[in-house]
């Protein structure tokens, strides 16, 4: 009964989404306040029904209703309740319902938090969100309903959730990632609404900035969580694989990062408007493309649950309509947009332009590397894959250029700076960065190569240019120290995000260079020494979990000859589907991780064991967390609310 209610609620939400996508749009076009006024209640109703539908599915999982096909194929009565609930988004159908729920969530958030918007703008934004929801509800209802039943004969127990996904990482990674993906739909909706109304001004940029920042923060967090999950769960100790699915999330992030910066220029200086709109369109289109790549089964990976040509075709059609439609609108409307000011060659605008160009180029290279194999395959020219060296060869230099321009961009002024003034600002941070970089290099065990040296120096460069900027802001104040704590929240947001970049650069550079790993054949009593750490393989134990049997290795770790810790890497056999899974044992630390994973039994008492030493690997995710924090701080700056009130007053005056 309950799954049918869920299905019914989903059908009702389709009707509401259709109304939301049309009525306010017509109302805004005809300046009909009544019709515009429907936007808010419809958005709330949409959220209510989608939420109800989602809860019905969650209930089916919680109560082990294996007559529902989707539950039976993704859950099992032996699963603990929290994994049963997170199994809701463990497969294709449920993760789409989650996508939808988050879309409805963003829609209702815009509806509630948009007191500052003019009525017609709000109506248009919500209507565009409604149109997107219409497309996706249709997709769920027609190709991937999670509520279908096995009737009259239903299985006694479920097939179990993929063991890789029985993990805390899966509980949090998809919702965060989707919050980011779908969050860009708000920026997209604002861009489309602005194009429709012809009001591409600073006020529009100001309205969409906090939404874009918060979506970007979620996406950053989602990607960082995914990387962390892959690191500890896949058993390889790698943190980024240039897997097409990872690329699918990285592309919207790169364009989203460009968008965040371009919006800043549009708001402050009234330039780059059409570019900003284009970025907003692309950020969301790439999110859709990501969903298509991951869900259609054209890619094969952990994330591709099922390959069903209908689904792929449906998403492709949605993609074509969304991208084609918005670009068509852009083509008609963007030519009327005029810049409100100009800027000199040496100015913050130019540096942000460089930032945008670099990020867009980076995104284009990732896109090429990701789609090229698909294209060649579709043309029947053979099967191939593009290896990580391609991405590294392009990404490393681009990131370093980005880091250079980041430092300069922080210190140059808007509009126009003289070259002399810029040099006067930059020389001290440059010298300090070179000194600090040299000290860092000397303190490393060996020379790490040119790229890493440049990377470390540039991390210091980002830090010192940031400090210089802070110093400039406070030195004229009567009490410079307390002025440091009185900067705007958006400013601290920027600082955190930029320091996050520096931290991540350090992590990536060091872990890529100084990681040590070896695959060993070990029998009880065997030892292996790495950097003062000695690993002693003691024995294997048998341990039983709720839905698995485990062979657990006991590995004693000595630090400089003294007992330090014991690590327990596992090999688990999940009984429902006879899946074997590696659970790595990790001893985390701010400056290094110890990582031990079991291979297979080699007969007798011998096991294949992989031992790894990973310096500074945590810094990669720490950098991601700092960026996330920065995005949230910037989005919650009270300035947006105050200024928005003034905009309304100005418009109604």
């Amino acid at each position, binding site marked *: 009964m309950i799954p049918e209610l869920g299905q019914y609620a989903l059908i009702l939400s389709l009707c509401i989404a259709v109304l939301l996508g049309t009525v306010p749009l017509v109302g805004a076009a005809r300046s009909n306040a009544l019709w515009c006024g429907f936007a808010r209640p419809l958005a709330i109703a949409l959220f209510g029904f989608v939420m109800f539908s989602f809860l019905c599915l969650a209930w089916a999982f919680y109560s082990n209703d294996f007559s529902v096909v989707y539950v039976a194929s993704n859950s099992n009565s032996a699963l603990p309740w929290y994994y049963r609930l997170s199994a809701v988004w463990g497969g294709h159908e449920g993760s789409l319902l989650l996508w939808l729920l988050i879309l409805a969530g963003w829609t209702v958030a815009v509806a509630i938090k948009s007191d500052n918007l003019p009525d017609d703008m709000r109506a248009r934004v919500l209507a565009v969100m409604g149109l997107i929801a219409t497309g996706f509800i249709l997709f769920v209802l027609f190709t991937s309903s999670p509520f279908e039943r096995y009737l009259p004969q239903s299985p006694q127990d479920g097939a179990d959730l*993929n063991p*890789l996904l029985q993990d805390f990482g899966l509980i949090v990674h998809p919702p965060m990632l989707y919050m980011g993906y779908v969050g860009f739909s708000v920026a997209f909706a604002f861009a489309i609404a602005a194009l429709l109304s012809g009001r591409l001004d600073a006020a529009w940029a100001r309205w969409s900035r906090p939404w874009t920042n918060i979506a970007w923060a979620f996406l950053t967090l989602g990607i960082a969580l995914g990387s962390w999950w892959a690191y500890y769960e896949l*058993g390889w100790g790698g943190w980024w694989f240039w897997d097409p699915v990872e690329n699918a999330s990285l592309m919207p992030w790169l364009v989203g990062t460009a968008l965040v910066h371009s919006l800043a220029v549009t708001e402050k200086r009234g330039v780059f408007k059409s570019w900003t709109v284009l970025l907003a369109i692309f950020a969301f289109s790439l999110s859709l493309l990501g969903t298509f790549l991951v869900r259609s089964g054209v890619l*094969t*990976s*952990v994330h591709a649950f*099922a*390959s069903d040509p209908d689904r792929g075709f449906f998403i492709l059609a949605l993609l074509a309509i969304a991208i084609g439609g918005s670009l068509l609108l852009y083509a008609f409307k963007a030519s009327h947009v005029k810049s409100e000011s*100009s800027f*000199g*060659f040496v100015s913050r605008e*130019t540096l942000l*332009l460089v930032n945008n*160009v670099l990020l867009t*180029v980076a995104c*284009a*290279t990732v896109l*090429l*590397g990701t789609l*090229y194999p698909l294209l060649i395959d579709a043309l029947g020219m*053979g*099967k*191939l*894959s*593009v*290896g*990580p*060296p*391609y991405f590294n*060869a*392009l990404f490393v230099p681009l990131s370093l250029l980005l880091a250079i321009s980041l430092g300069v961009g922080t210190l140059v002024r808007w509009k126009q700076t003289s070259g002399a003034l810029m040099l006067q600002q930059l020389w001290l941070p440059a010298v300090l960065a070179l000194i600090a970089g040299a000290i860092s290099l000397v303190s490393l065990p060996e020379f790490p190569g040119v790229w890493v040296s440049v990377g470390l120096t540039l991390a210091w460069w980002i830090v010192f240019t940031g400090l210089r900027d802070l110093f400039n802001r406070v030195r004229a104040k009567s009490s410079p120290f307390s002025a440091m704590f009185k900067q705007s929240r958006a400013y601290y947001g920027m600082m955190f995000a930029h320091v996050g970049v520096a931290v991540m650069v350090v992590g990536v550079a060091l872990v890529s260079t100084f990681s040590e790993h070896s*695959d*060993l*054949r070990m029998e009880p009593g065997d030892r292996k020494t790495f950097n003062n750490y000695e690993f002693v393989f003691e024995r294997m134990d048998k341990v039983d979990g709720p839905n698995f049997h485990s062979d657990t290795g006991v590995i004693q770790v000595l630090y400089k000859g003294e007992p330090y810790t014991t690590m327990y890497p596992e090999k688990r056999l999940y009984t429902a*589907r*006879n*899946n*074997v*899974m*590696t659970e790595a044992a990790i001893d985390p630390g701010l400056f290094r991780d110890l990582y031990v*994973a079991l*291979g*297979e039994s*080699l*007969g007798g008492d011998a096991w*294949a064991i*992989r031992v790894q030493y990973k310096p500074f690997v945590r810094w990669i995710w720490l950098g991601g967390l700092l960026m996330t924090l920065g995005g949230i701080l910037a989005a919650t700056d009270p300035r947006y609310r105050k200024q928005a009130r003034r905009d309304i007053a100005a418009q109604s005056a």
Partner: protein
Amino acid sequence: MNPKRKKRLYIVLFIVFGVAVAVGLTLFALNQNINLFYSPTQIAEGEAPTDTRIRAGGMVVDGSVKRAEDSLEVMFEITDYEKTVSVHYSGILPDLFREGQGIVAQGELDGQGVFQAVEVLAKHDENYMPAEVAEALEKAGKMPMPSGQEFNK
């Protein structure tokens, strides 16, 4: 040309130059890092190049996996039920590596026709068959199981 236009021209030239360099480097890097897939039949018939990084895939032949006594060296054979190729690998095999399982290996073909793998991939689902392998098997008309229904469902 007035100064404003001149400045714009510089900016445009700068961007065009940057894009050209980026595209050039990109295509070069792409060319260097493409790994083509070859089926065991193609390898056995000498279609695959030696000493170049390629991918090879097939089903692991039952009873072919031979481990060294004192190291992680392992030899096994992969097949598309038409031809068979020996694979040599040193290291830890993935969880889903089993005899009768579809795998994809990345590495180089040596002069003796043995595939020296540096990476062995078996994906995360026991019913999963790598798409390349499935296609190669279908081409050879050797898809196992009732018309391959059990795989990739």
